[in-house]
């Protein structure tokens, strides 16, 4: 069953067409990787899905509902959550508080929000946040200020924050960037665990090893166009993809 | 009568125009709402009086006042923009408010809070054209102010410094990559914009012959209104805005009373901010958070 579908998405900035008619589908429970060389438009696609930018053309359907006319802040209510390429936690709030921000749509109206975090509905959300932090092995850092944490830990906190929204589609923008091999391993295990619980994911990532371990399908973008689609292993062998990354002439590959 | 008011409005507007240009240079190029501008204005005007009191000749007093204001503006650069750029724009704004209070009160501590009258070096010279009386100092200010704005435009458009300033306005990071020495260009911008408003202070004190440590507050607030009306970041907008605010003030005084001026001018400022925050010639992107 298709959970998420993009139809013929187009976006130009100042006359330069950055996204040129991209279409894709993500089935329920699938993990789709969006890969491609720098400047291919991967993050722009995320920003269009998110509502950072408004597409010039095309539809973005989550569970049959078109997100394009919807205000960015309402999209999370339809099950869309994301992590950011450059970490965007609030440095002078604690890890737990940052994670709680992710559950904003479950926090009730203005009056419920004016209650201290340990009362009423906030109490239940706090227990939930602690549970997710524990699952992620981050309990020890719960009370620390987000700004004081190591880079790798902050990346994982961002994922937990996005999960607090109980999303149907989780967008991960370069979850591995800046992590060392060991940190990548920890993150991979964690994402596999989350995936096993049934969360559908779209991942922008450069590390093909990571993509191969997490995702069951990959779409390759180059200059704002889809140039290949298949399993991670298939697209990695695709001549068009290799050319896009290495910039070789197609003829040379024909002989290779 | 109307002709006389038109002339008076334009002459007052010339002062607001200079202040508005100063604000708009800081804002348009550095996204910095620099509240030390009223203090630099005051330093120009007040120190001219103070130096004349000390027995200096007029020219020396004016140059001395401008020099102090220029140094003050460079100090502001060092302690605000230089170390706070790239962060939230509210931080340099708050620091510059600190400088406003610092400079005003330093002058107050030394010379007291009273308004002082400053004699005019031009005497009572004025020119009559039919019914209209033109004060020589005011007229000189209007001419000098307009000449300076043209000079500034020429500088921004043609000189190496102008190119540097424009590239910093695009993005300090890109400017650095392009080989612009940001830490040389920006102090010169502070010097330029600081001198613009300090000179406005000198003109104000020579035209209206009254100085006080807080003389900059009301004038600079109107300069801010002029900048917003014209469109933040636009030099020609500041020119038009300044002249319009000058005219509105003079006509409001005669139609209502001097006490009603602030209601009219700041009511207009508020209305512009609500209805058309980009002003007449402004850039819609400035001052808004970037994505």
């Amino acid at each position, binding site marked *: 069953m298709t959970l998420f579908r993009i139809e013929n998405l187009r976006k130009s900035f100042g006359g330069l067409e950055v996204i040129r008619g991209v279409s894709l589908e993500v089935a329920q429970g699938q993990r789709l990787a969006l890969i491609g060389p720098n400047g291919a438009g991967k993050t722009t696609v995320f920003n269009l899905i*998110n*509502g*950072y930018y408004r597409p010039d053309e095309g539809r973005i359907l989550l569970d049959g509902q078109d997100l394009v006319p919807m205000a*960015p*802040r*309402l999209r*999370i209510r339809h099950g869309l959550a*994301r992590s950011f390429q450059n970490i*965007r936690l*609030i440095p*002078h*709030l604690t890890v737990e*508080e940052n994670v*709680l*921000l992710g559950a*904003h*749509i479950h926090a009730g109206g*203005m009056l419920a*929000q004016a*209650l*201290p*975090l340990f009362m009423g509905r*906030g109490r239940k959300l706090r227990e939930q946040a602690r549970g997710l932090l524990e699952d992620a092995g981050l309990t020890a850092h719960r009370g620390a200020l987000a700004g*004081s944490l190591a880079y790798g830990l902050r990346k994982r906190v961002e994922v937990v924050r996005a999960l607090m*929204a109980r999303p149907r589609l989780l967008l991960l923008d370069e979850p591995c960037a800046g992590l060392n091999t060991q940190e990548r391993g920890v993150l991979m295990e964690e994402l596999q665990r989350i995936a096993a619980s049934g969360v559908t994911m779209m991942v922008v990532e450069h590390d093909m090893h990571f993509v191969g371990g997490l995702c069951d399908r990959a779409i390759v973008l180059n200059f704002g166009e889809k140039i290949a689609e298949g399993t991670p292993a298939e697209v990695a062998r695709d001549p068009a993809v290799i050319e896009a990354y290495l910039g070789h002439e197609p003829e040379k590959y024909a002989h290779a | 009568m109307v002709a006389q008011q038109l002339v008076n409005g334009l002459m007052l507007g010339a002062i607001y125009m200079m202040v508005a240009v100063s604000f708009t240079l800081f*804002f348009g190029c550095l996204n910095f*709402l620099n*509240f030390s501008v009223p203090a630099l204005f005051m330093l120009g005007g007040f120190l001219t009086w103070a130096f004349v009191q000390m027995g200096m000749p007029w020219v020396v007093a004016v140059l001395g006042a401008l020099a102090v204001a220029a140094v003050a503006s460079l100090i502001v650069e060092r*302690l605000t923009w230089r170390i706070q750029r790239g*962060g939230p724009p*509210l*931080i340099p*704004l*708050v*620091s510059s*408010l*600190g*400088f*406003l*209070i*610092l400079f005003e*009160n330093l002058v*107050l*501590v030394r010379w007291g809070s009273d308004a002082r009258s400053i004699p005019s070096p031009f005497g009572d010279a004025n020119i009559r054209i039919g019914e209209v009386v033109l004060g020589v100092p005011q007229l000189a200010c209007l001419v000098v102010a307009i000449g300076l704005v043209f000079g500034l435009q020429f500088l921004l458009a043609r000189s190496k410094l102008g190119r540097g300033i424009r590239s910093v306005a695009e993005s300090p990071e890109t400017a650095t990559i392009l080989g612009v020495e940001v830490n040389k260009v920006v102090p010169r911008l502070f010097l330029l914009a600081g001198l613009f408003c300090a000179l406005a202070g000198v003109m104000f004190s020579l035209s209206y012959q009254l100085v006080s440590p807080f003389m900059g*507050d009301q004038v600079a*607030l109107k300069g*801010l209104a002029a900048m917003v009306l014209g469109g933040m970041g636009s030099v020609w907008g500041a020119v038009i805005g300044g002249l319009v605010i000058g005219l509105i003030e003079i006509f409001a005084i005669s139609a209502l009373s001097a*006490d*009603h*001026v*602030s*209601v009219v001018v*700041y*009511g207009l400022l*508020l209305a512009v901010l*609500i209805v058309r*925050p980009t002003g007449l010639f402004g850039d819609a992107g400035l*001052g*808004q*958070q970037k994505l």
Partner: protein
Amino acid sequence: MSGYWAGILVILAINVIAAYSAWLPLAAGQVNLGTAGFMAVGAYAGAVLSGDYEWPVGAAIAAGAVASGLLALLVGSAVLRTRGLYLALATLAVNEVVRGILLNWDAVGGASGYPVIAHIELLPIAIAALCVFLVAAWLGASRFGMTLHAIEQDETMTGLFGVHVSRVQLAAFTIGGVMAGLAGALYAHHFSYIEAQYFTVLMSVTIVLSVVLGGVQTVWGPLVGAAFFTLLPELFRGASNWRYVLFAAGVIAIMALRPQGIVTRAALMRLRRAA
């Protein structure tokens, strides 16, 4: 307690309330440079109601706070659509418009000011300041408070998590307006005389500066800032002219070295661990 100290405590309490009124919007990244204007609205509304209309003092003061809050709601909903530095300019304009109207309004004495007959002493003012602090601490510990800090740091990201950014900012601005009105009404009923000239933009500026000096990250910052600003001249007695010079130099130094202000969240956590 001597009259001298009672006098200082009254000013401290009023400054503390004014500081929290500026803190709420500041915590969400909005500078209100019109706090003194909102105080003036509270002062005049309260004074007219307790004087001309013979309302009980408590009700008149509360009504003054509400009047200022309504003005904040009105101004905020009109101007908050435009964010960032524009709000600083708009509130500044509000301050001057309010002052201009009061100066020309003969029914409230115009430029000669308005005498306030009803009088309150230190105790009710101190209780009001304590209540304002408790409200601020309560809100600071709530999701609302958390959201304010998130907006200040990263408005776009916060919006993507479903926060209605402009509504939260409007709420902070309006509650701040109520507090400013309360500070003004208390001031009017203690000093028995108000004049529009007193509520200048410069006063709004010093309120904002004292909050920023104290730090906007925690609920303690405004308290520290207001205390610093109020008590500084007492520490340098005989040099009261230097008060603003020292204060301004302090603000510049703090903003240069530690733009988060004196009290930060991290510093509080270190203190708590050490204790």
